[in-house]
């Protein structure tokens, strides 16, 4: 059995032929996969070392000072340890992450007041709390991509289900829910975020949920139209005449044929998610500090105009990410253009 229908196959081939979109897709995917491994790649603890013949994995396990000949039961300070000769004598095969930085650690021992300009230790400088900008950018990328992907999935599920049910049921259900959606759409989103954020903690998933609740509406309109159109196709009538259940008709017969608007909107919804999180963070209504985030970096940059490395690097990162996503969206839209489908 084939995974994709011929139609989908043809669209994938067309997408691959659009070089710009295809490469953007790979660049963004690879970047995201690497950012998911950021714990291993960007960290200020060794990934592995052996000490007195035993193996240690500081990134994944908790070790105390006493384990390495120190006095206290507090967590080992690996920065000091790695400069300690007694430790280095007994330790061997130390594997460190390629970027030896932690996005949350303040480098208060540096001279001058933060933010510090780019240097050999901090390639993109530090922010106003003396935290490494590069590390925060990478972790911020991971956060905002994960956030947007989750948000997009949530939007897709809500939009498909609600729009689909509206279109499939039609009649009074459609009419009433359409009016309710119009009321819902007119709620001021930012105030709701502020209010909910002041009552509950603004966690990652809470923010995804709130944003999703306000962003599915656009997609539901498309899905409603698709379902209204497709439910009168003959093959749906045949399916009804054959006695298939409504759920089966909904998911197996209508939905796969009505997914074009979802797929073409997804990359743009990703862009929307990134921008939304960044602007919320910029305004201070987003993720709780000290979570690394691009919006927070931007607001720091605004407060520290004399430290352009914060703003410039963040804006560049944001620009490249959004551009890649837009290229992908453009390609997907082109690939799914019905004018390209042969009969």
């Amino acid at each position: 059995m084939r995974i994709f229908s011929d139609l989908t196959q043809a669209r994938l081939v067309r997408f691959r032929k659009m070089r710009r979109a295809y490469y953007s897709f790979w660049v963004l995917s690879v970047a995201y996969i690497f950012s998911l491994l950021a714990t291993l790649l960007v960290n200020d603890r060794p990934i592995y070392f052996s000490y007195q013949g035993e193996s240690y994995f500081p990134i994944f396990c908790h070790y105390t000072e006493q384990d390495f000949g120190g006095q206290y039961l507090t967590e080992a300070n690996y920065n000091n340890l790695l400069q300690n000769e007694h430790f280095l004598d007994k330790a061997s095969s130390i594997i460190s992450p390629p970027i030896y930085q932690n996005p949350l650690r303040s480098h208060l021992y540096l001279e001058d007041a933060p933010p510090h300009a780019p240097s050999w230790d901090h390639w993109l400088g530090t922010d106003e709390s003396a935290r490494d900008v590069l590390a925060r950018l990478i972790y911020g990328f991971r956060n905002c991509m994960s956030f947007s992907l989750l948000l997009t999935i949530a939007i897709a599920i809500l939009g498909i289900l609600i729009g689909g049910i509206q279109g499939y049921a039609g009649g009074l259900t459609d009419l009433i829910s359409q009016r309710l959606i119009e009321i819902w759409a007119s709620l001021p989103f930012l105030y709701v975020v502020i209010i909910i954020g002041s009552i509950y903690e603004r966690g990652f998933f809470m923010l995804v949920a709130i944003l999703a609740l306000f962003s599915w509406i656009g997609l539901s309109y498309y899905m409603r139209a698709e379902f209204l159109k497709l439910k009168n196709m003959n093959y749906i009538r045949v399916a009804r005449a054959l006695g298939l259940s409504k759920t089966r008709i909904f998911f197996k017969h209508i939905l796969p044929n009505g997914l074009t608007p979802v797929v073409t909107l997804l990359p743009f919804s990703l862009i929307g998610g990134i921008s939304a999180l960044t602007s919320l963070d910029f305004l201070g209504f987003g993720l709780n500090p000290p979570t690394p985030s691009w919006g927070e970096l931007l607001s720091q940059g605004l407060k520290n105009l004399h430290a352009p490395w914060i703003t410039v690097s963040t804006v560049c990162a944001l620009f490249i990410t959004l551009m890649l996503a837009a290229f992908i969206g453009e390609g997907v839209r082109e690939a799914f253009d019905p004018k390209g489908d042969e009969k």
Partner: protein
Amino acid sequence: MMNLLEAHDIESYFDIRGGLFGRIQSYVKAVNGVSLNVGEGEIVSVVGESGCGKSTLGLALLGLQKIRSGSLSFQGESINVNDFKSWQGLRKDLQIIFQDPYTSLNPRLTIYESLSEPLLLHGICKKSELKDKVGYLLEQVELKPEMMDRFPHSFSGGQRQRICIARVLGIEPKLIVCDEIVSALDVSVQAQILELLLKLKESHNLSLLFISHDLAVVRAISRRIYVMYLGRVVEEGPSEMLFHQPKHPYTKALLDSIPTLDRSRRPVLLEGEVPSPTNLPTGCAFASRCKYKSEKCGELPQRSGLDDQSYYCHNPLN
């Protein structure tokens, strides 16, 4: 002969909604009191011009279009026309094939998936035997079993229509409603499909309700004909009698309008406006276009005629 399907006074309207709360403002009276019956093993046709409600009637007879009033019975058992479950019980016996073979197959399913779905649903055969059964069905409609892994877009219109026939054939229905099944096809392919259908009818003991506007096709295959005009049956009877001695002026007009190669016999075209189906006249709906119109035509004509051939007209032809 036992009547397989009996429909009495079927009405099916389309709502026209408007205003702030979408209140029903008027109706399109697509099917406006049609009675018909199909006997076991019989081929019955419904003919009429576009917009006369014949396709809506076909949908209504399968419960795919809401029936406003009227009664239906299948194999002597009456159907509760407003109850979904009541219809679900009939699905195995009553099937439909549509006009447009291009939209009748789900473009995202292979032929195998499309054909096996109803078989599994109705428990016709086991999962392990599905492939053989689908192959057998394709052979029945004179297609190669190897084609089952292809998608609909790689087939021609005639082949698709064969696949649609195979799909309903699989669940061994008793009655198939054929809604203009050949009108989207080339004439040569039309003949093949009709021949196939007649052959399958004999071998599977099917009854067919044939909906068409094509009089030549209807005459070639059916034993009995219903002529519809604006939601009502205007004349019914055995096909030979209807073709040789039409009683209703509309039937006559339909026969006269068939184009022929004989240049001396020009087709006679109807004149006058077709009344709007939202605002039907109280009397005979055909009166506005009828040559034989009289004062009586302001009233709805009653059924008259013999048992074999009956008509609804005040001024029948001789």
